[in-house]
Every structure is written in C-alpha cells, then in structure tokens.
C-alpha cells in the first residue's frame, strides 16, 4: 500500500462511517497514540469534506490501562486529549494496525472514564490478524495476512511489511 492507496482507503472508510451512522452528527473520532493519531485526523478531515459537518477529534493514550503494566516498560507517549463529553456520542476509535486486540481492549477501558458512548466503532488501516481477544474492526483499510513475527509499519508513505529479524538483527522463536 502506498500513500495514494491509503488516501483512497481513508476515503472509503469515511463513506462507510457516514453510511453506518446516517451522517456524522454524533460522531467523535479518537486516535490511539501514536500511530492512530494522524489517521484519525485525516479520517475526520475526510468526514468533514464529504458530509460538511465538523467532527471532533480526540487522542487517547492507553498506557495506564494496558494489561501488561509492570511486565514490560510502559510509559505514556503523549497526554490524552478528549475534547468533548462522550456520553451518547458515537466514538470511532482509530488505530494504524490491529494485531492482538489488547490495545483496543485497553482503549475501551480508558474510554469508560470519559462518559458512556452510545456506540464505539473501530477503524484500522491494517488488520493483520492474530487476535488474542474477542475484538473485531468495523472499518478496515486493508486485510494483511501476516506471520506473528513479522512487523507491519504504517507511515504517511504507506504500509510496509518487515520481519523482526530485519529490525533488531535476531530471529524470534
């Protein structure tokens, strides 16, 4: 996937969000730190572009809600910023890669501190499989079959696939 493919995927997902929710009136887009944040911004901009209404954008850092706190080094990447009360809104969570589902579980836990949304939906640029929890995405840029030990990198330039061996110079079990 290159940058143009990603732009087209975001545009398609935006249409799907509008179709599913009959507009964007109650929609709040929340990007997960760090990879989901730029995608959330461009999804919200595209929603505005298509539907004509302003869409609030928030960012969420789930470090304090992870289930592996204390097991590995965990520090927040950035300060969470949820600009509106989420009660009765439709939250579209945005992340770059959906893998085990643990980040999304932590995000659902974190969202509960900001009110009671009418619905929470999940948009991801890449679904690479290997879920460890009963979580599925509502809007997907691309389904990308992977091995567990591969790395998926999503940036402004596009999506690329590497192996752990490439990046850290060792093989994984």
């Amino acid at each position, binding site marked *: 996937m290159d940058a143009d493919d990603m732009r087209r995927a975001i545009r398609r997902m935006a249409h799907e969000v509008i179709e599913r929710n009959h507009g964007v009136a109650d929609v709040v887009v929340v990007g997960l730190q760090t990879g989901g944040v730029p995608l959330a911004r461009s999804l919200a901009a595209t929603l505005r572009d298509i539907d004509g209404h302003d869409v609030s954008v928030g960012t969420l850092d789930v470090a*304090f809600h992870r289930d592996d706190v204390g097991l590995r080094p965990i520090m927040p990447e950035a300060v*969470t910023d949820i600009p509106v009360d989420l009660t009765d809104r439709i939250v579209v969570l945005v992340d770059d890669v959906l893998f085990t589902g643990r980040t999304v579980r932590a995000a659902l*836990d974190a969202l509960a501190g900001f009110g009671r949304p009418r619905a929470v939906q999940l948009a991801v640029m890449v679904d690479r499989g290997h879920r460890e929890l009963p979580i599925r995405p509502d809007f997907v840029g691309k389904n990308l079959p992977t091995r567990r030990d591969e790395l998926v990198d999503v940036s402004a330039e596009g999506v690329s696939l590497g192996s752990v061996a490439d990046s850290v110079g060792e093989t994984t079990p």
Partner: protein
Amino acid sequence: MRHLLSIDDLGRDGIEEVMALTDSFVEVSNRPIPKVPALRGKTVAWLFYEDSTRTRLSFEAAARRLSADTMNFSVGSSSVKKGESLRDTAQTIQAMGVDAIVVRHGSAGVPWQLTRWLDCAVVNAGDGWHEHPTQALLDCYTLREHFGSLEGRRIAIVGDVKHSRVAGSDVRAFAALGAEVTLVAPPTLLPASLEGWPVQVSHDLDAVLTTTDVAYMLRMQLERQDEALVPSLREFTACFGLTVDRARLLPDHALVMHPGPMNRGIEIAAEVAESTRSVIRQQVSNGVAVRMAVLFLLLGSGRPEPIVTVPEEVAVHG
C-alpha cells in the same frame, strides 16, 4: 528508578521525566472518572512517624486514582507505642506483601536506612530537616505550568530555612532546573553550614522581592524550635513576613508559593495567600498528580518482575 529518596537521585533528566509524566496524570485527574487501573494489585503502605495531613492524603488520593491498595500505619495507634523498633515495624509491614512504603520520620536518613532493610520501593515523604522530594517536584511542576521553564528564573526562599526539609529539596530541584535561588532569612534560621548549597543568601527581603520571579514562603516551624531563634514572632513578621505592603514590591508577574500548612499573619498575610499571584492551591492539586507519577514510575513503568518480599532468613535473623 527503584526508590525516591532525594532530589539528587533524579537529577535534571529525572525531574523532567516526572514532569512529563505528571502532565498525563493531570489529564487523568481531570477526567469525569479520575481513575486508571495502572497499579491494580499493588499495595502501598504509609509509615508516618510524624503528623501530616496534606502529604498523606495526597499520596492516598494518588494511590487510589492508580487503583493501588493502601495500608495506613499511624504511629499513635500501633505497636510502636509498645516499643517496636523501626526495623521490626518496617519489616513486618513488608512481610504483609507491600510493593512500596511511603515514609515520614523525624530523623534525617531514615528512608535510606529502610532501603537497606527492605526489598520494596521506598518513597521519602519527609525525613527530619533534610528532604521532602515530592514537595519539590510538585513545586517545580507548578512553576513549570506558569513559566514553562525554570532556566534563569529567580526564586527567593524565605523564612525558616533551618528546619525546612522543603527548602532542602526545593533548593536542589530548582537549581537542577537552572533557577537562581536566594535564601532570605535571619542568620539564626539558616542551616549551620550552607557549603555546597547552590544558593545566594540575603537578609534583606525588601531588596530581594523587587527582582524575584517567585517568593516561596516557608512555614515558621514553631514545633521544631526549642530555643529562641527570633526575638519575637512580631519582629520576625516585620522583617521576613510577606505582608500586604511588602507583596506590592513584587514584579507584576511574580508568584507567591507556600508548602502549607500556613501560619497566616506570621510568614504570610492572609490577603497575600488569597491574592491572584498566589499559587498555593495549585501546589496542592498538582501534588496528587506528581505523586501519581512517582508511584507509577516506581511500581508500574517497567520493573521486569513483581517485587518479592524479604527473604525468610533476613526476616527472621535481620
């Protein structure tokens, strides 16, 4: 970071790290439900050999917002009254399975001694006249909110420096962040030696106030003064109290701080404490977020394995 004993353990980088993490916990504290599960299953015990309201409550709020469990130990109603030693008390608490002990004690160095006896994390919540690092961290955070950076800022620490562990930690922290610190006090209320302290000293409060960015008023610690160090409280207030008239000498942007509890009318006039330049309340509310950051750094941010309790042989023969 394994313990928080002194500001010196943190250095400039460590203080900046705590500040950055505190930003996140200020956000958590402002949520409709200000609680995160980060320290679920961790237990923090308070071991307070001296009175404290705000520090203990502030740590308590911090631990609860992180979902940690807390155990309270107050000396007045415990086996210490039956003559139990500090070491036995601390090891008994640890044997109940705590991950951190927050200690306040009237003698300098007690937190260091505890780290030799215990495996759990130790946080210094005030040791004698020596240090009170979390107070200094919340003071730095409050100043950073107003000034962005402390680099080159002038901070006057005024009053009973001699008995003040707050001053001990603040001087270290402010200097580490690049501020110019001036101690303003009568000679009898300064430590016997200021060797190695990165400070200037003045006995003329009026002169210092006209150019300072911050007037940090210390509590007159009457309970620690067993000799007459000032001729009278009225004279102390006349020379070193931040009265309404004297506060007018401050530059427009200058802030007034106080670690609490205040002796209104002695080191600070009530009107000054309530004025718009006073950030005393912000100090208190920032205190909770700073202590959340400290507890998270010690217990949640990446220790590879859970803390194990003290080995049996040490517990028995130690």
